[in-house]
C-alpha cells in the first residue's frame, strides 16, 4: 500500500513547477461548495493555496452521506498528500482513512476526532481544524444588546450541533455581560444556554424556514437577530429587511461583503476557515504537518468580529471601546468565554 502510494507520489512529482508536487484535496459535505458557509470557505482556502503556494488541488463534492467514503477513497487513491474533510459528518471517514494510510495526512474542518463513545482521540496523521467562535460571538452579543432598541435580541441555528451552538452560547454570554455591566435587562430569544435548548430551522438549506423563524422572533419583539445556519440566514435577512427596523448579526464570513444585505448587517462573527486551510496546506507542503489541533481564537485571529461598515456611526463610541476592552481581556486570558461546545 505504502509502496503503491509512493509510486503515485513520484508520478505526481514529475509535474514540473516548483511546489506543484504537493497535492491537497478536499471533500465537501452535502452542503456543497456554494453553501455560503464552511464548504465554501474551505474551498476558498484551497484556491488561495493553489494560487499562492503553487500546489495541486483536487475537489470532490458530496451529495449525500453515502458519498463520503468513495470520495475520500478516491482522494487517497490519487495520492493526495493532505485530504480535508469538511464538517463533523466526515469525522469517521477521515479517521478510518487516516488510520489505513499512515503515509498520508488528513485534516477535518469544524470537528474534532472522537471514538465510538464520543471521547476525544488523537491520530498521528490527522489534524482537527476547529474554531472557538464563542469568543467572537460574545463580542457580537454585547454589541447586539447595546444597540437593541426593543430590549430583545434573537438567534436561531440550523441544526443543533456543537459548531452551531457555540455561536449561540457566546452570543448569550455577551448579552448577559451587557446586562450586568449596564444594569439592563436585554432578553435573548431563541436560545437558552443553561438548558442548551432553542430554535433551529432543521437544516442548512431551507431559507423559507429561516424566514419563518425570523418573523416569529421579530413578532416577539427582537430587533437584532443572529442566524447561525449558513444560507438559511438569507431567509432571515429577507424577513428582517421586510420588517424594516431589524438588524442582523451575520456569521462565518463578513456578511457585508458576502451577501446583498449589507445595509442591515450590524456586524459579523467571522470564522477564518479559508486562512486556516491555507495555513495547514502550507505547513504540509513545507513538511511541517502536525496533528496538533488548530483552534481559531480571537488571539490568533482565527475568529473575529467584522467591521461595523454602515453601522460605524450608529454604534455608540463607548460600546465600541468596551468591545475592544473585552476583546483584549479575552486575548490576555483575564476573561474566559465558556461553552459546552468549546473545542478541547
Amino acid at each position: 500500500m505504502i509502496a503503491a502510494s509512493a509510486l503515485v507520489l513520484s508520478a505526481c512529482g514529475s509535474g514540473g513547477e516548483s511546489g506543484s508536487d504537493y497535492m491537497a484535496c478536499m471533500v465537501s459535505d452535502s452542503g456543497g461548495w456554494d453553501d455560503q458557509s464552511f464548504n465554501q470557505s474551505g474551498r476558498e482556502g484551497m484556491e488561495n493555496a493553489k494560487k499562492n503556494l503553487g500546489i495541486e488541488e483536487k475537489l470532490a463534492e458530496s451529495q449525500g452521506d453515502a458519498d463520503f467514503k468513495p470520495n475520500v477513497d478516491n482522494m487517497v487513491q490519487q495520492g493526495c498528500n493532505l485530504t480535508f474533510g469538511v464538517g463533523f459528518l466526515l469525522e469517521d471517514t477521515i479517521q478510518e482513512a487516516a488510520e489505513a494510510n499512515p503515509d498520508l495526512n488528513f485534516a477535518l474542518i469544524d470537528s474534532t476526532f472522537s471514538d465510538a463513545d464520543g471521547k476525544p482521540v488523537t491520530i498521528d496523521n490527522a489534524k482537527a481544524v476547529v474554531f472557538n467562535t464563542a469568543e467572537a460571538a460574545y463580542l457580537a452579543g454585547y454589541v447586539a444588546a447595546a444597540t437593541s432598541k426593543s430590549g430583545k435580541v434573537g438567534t436561531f441555528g440550523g441544526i443543533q450541533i456543537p459548531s452551531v451552538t457555540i455561536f449561540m452560547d457566546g452570543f448569550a454570554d455577551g448579552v448577559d455581560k451587557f446586562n450586568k455591566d449596564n444594569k439592563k435587562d436585554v432578553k435573548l430569544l431563541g436560545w437558552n444556554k443553561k438548558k442548551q435548548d432553542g430554535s433551529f430551522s432543521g437544516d442548512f438549506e431551507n431559507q423559507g424556514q429561516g424566514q419563518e423563524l425570523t418573523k416569529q422572533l421579530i413578532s416577539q419583539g427582537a430587533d437584532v437577530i443572529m442566524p447561525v445556519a449558513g444560507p438559511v440566514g438569507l431567509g432571515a435577512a429577507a424577513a428582517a429587511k421586510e420588517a424594516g427596523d431589524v438588524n442582523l448579526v451575520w456569521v462565518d464570513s463578513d456578511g457585508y461583503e458576502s451577501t446583498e444585505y449589507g445595509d442591515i448587517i450590524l456586524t459579523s462573527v467571522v470564522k477564518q476557515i479559508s486562512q486556516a486551510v491555507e495555513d495547514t496546506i502550507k505547513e504540509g507542503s513545507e513538511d511541517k504537518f502536525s496533528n496538533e489541533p488548530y483552534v481559531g481564537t480571537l488571539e490568533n485571529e482565527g475568529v473575529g468580529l467584522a467591521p461595523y461598515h454602515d453601522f460605524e456611526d450608529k454604534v455608540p463610541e463607548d460600546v465600541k471601546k468596551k468591545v475592544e476592552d473585552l476583546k483584549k481581556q479575552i486575548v490576555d486570558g483575564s476573561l474566559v468565554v465558556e461553552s459546552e461546545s468549546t473545542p478541547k
Partner: protein
Amino acid sequence: MTTDISPAAPSAAPPPESETEDGKEQTLLQQIMSGSWLVSLLAIVLALLFGGVLIAVSNAEVVAAAENFFAAPGEFFATLFQTVGNAYSALFRGAVFDWDARTTERAIRPLTESMVSGTSLILTGLGIALAFRCGLFNIGGQGQVILGATIAGFLGYALPLPPVVHMLVAAIGGIIGGAIWAGIAGVLKARTGANEVIVTIMLNSIAGYALGYLLKQNWFTHTTSANPQSRVIDDSAQMFLLLPPPFRLHFGFVIAILATIFVWWLLERSTIGFEFKAVGANPHAARTAGISVSKVTILVMIVAGALAGLGGAAQVLGTEYKLTGGISGSIGFDAITVALLGRSKPLGTFLAGLLFGAFKAGGYLMQSQTGTPIDIVLVVQSVIVLLIAAPPLVRSIFRLPTPVLKRKED
C-alpha cells in the same frame, strides 16, 4: 379471499386490454410503461450526449477554445472531444473497470462499487415499481428508506445478538419499518381515498424530521457525542462482505437479486400479483371481477414499503454502519427514476438500478480526477427521466414508428 376470485380472474383480464387498445382509457403510467427497450436505451444515449454538451460548456478550456473558434476550429474540436472524452472515460473507469489502477484489485473494484451503490436503489426501485404496476404513485420511497434504516440501524447497535442472526433481525426490522410507513399511505388511500402521492410525500418529511429528533436523543443514539449521529452498529449486525477489503460489496447485493426474483414471481406467477396488476390496469374492471381494490391497495403499499425499508436497511447495515440525518441520501427519489427507466419490470428495475449505481460510482472518479461538476451526473439522470416520460419525443427525434398499442405480457 384469493381462492374466491381465481376463477373469475381470467375473465377480468380482457377488459383492460381492450380498453387500452382503443387508447382512450390509457393512463400516462401505462403509456410510460408501454415504451420499448429501445426507447430506454436511446434515452440514455441522448442524455449522455446532452451531458457531454454541458461538460463542454462548464469547462474553461473548451470555452476558451470556442472563443477562438473561427481562428482555429480544429483546436476547438480537439479540446472539445478531449474534455468530454476524459470526463466520460473517468466515469467509465469509476463505474466498470479502471485500467489506470495500480493493482488488479483496484482495477476491478469499480464494478463492485457500482453494485454497492446500486443495491439500495434496486431494492427501493422495486418497491416503487411494484406500486406503479398497481397504478399507485409511491413517492414515499424516501420516507420508507429512512424508517427502514432507522429501525435496522437501531436494532443493529441496541441488541446484543450473535452474528448473522443479528443482521437478519435488523434487516427484518427495516422491512417492518418501511412496510408500516407505506402501509399508512395504503390504508388512508383505501379507507378514505386520500391521494397516495400527497400522503407519501408528507410522510417523507415526517420520517426525516423524526429521524432528526431521534438523533438528538441519547437513549436512541447510544453515544454521548453531541453531534446528531448514532453509535456505529455492531460487527454482528453488518451485512458481511462478499469479497475481502478493499472491496465493499456486501450481502445486501444478494438480497437485491433475491428481491428481484421475488417481485418477478409475485407479479408473474402468484394470484395476488395478478390482482395487483388487474387493479393497476383497471380498478373498475377489477372490482367487477370480484377483486377487493382496497385490500390490494393496502397490500401493495405494504410490500412496496417493505422493499424500500430493506433498501434503507442495506444502506445502514451494508455500507454506512451508522445513522445520520442524511442516511437516505436521495435514494428514495432516485429510485423513482430507476423504476421508470426499468419500465416497472423487475429485471428492468434491477438493470436500471445497476446503471444508476454505476453513474454514482463513476461520478466520484469523474469529479475528483477531471474536476467535472458532479451535478452533470444528476442532469444526465434527469434528462433520462424526461425522455422516458415523453416517449413520443424520443420517437420523433429518432423517427421511430409509433408502436401499435398492444400490451404484451413479458
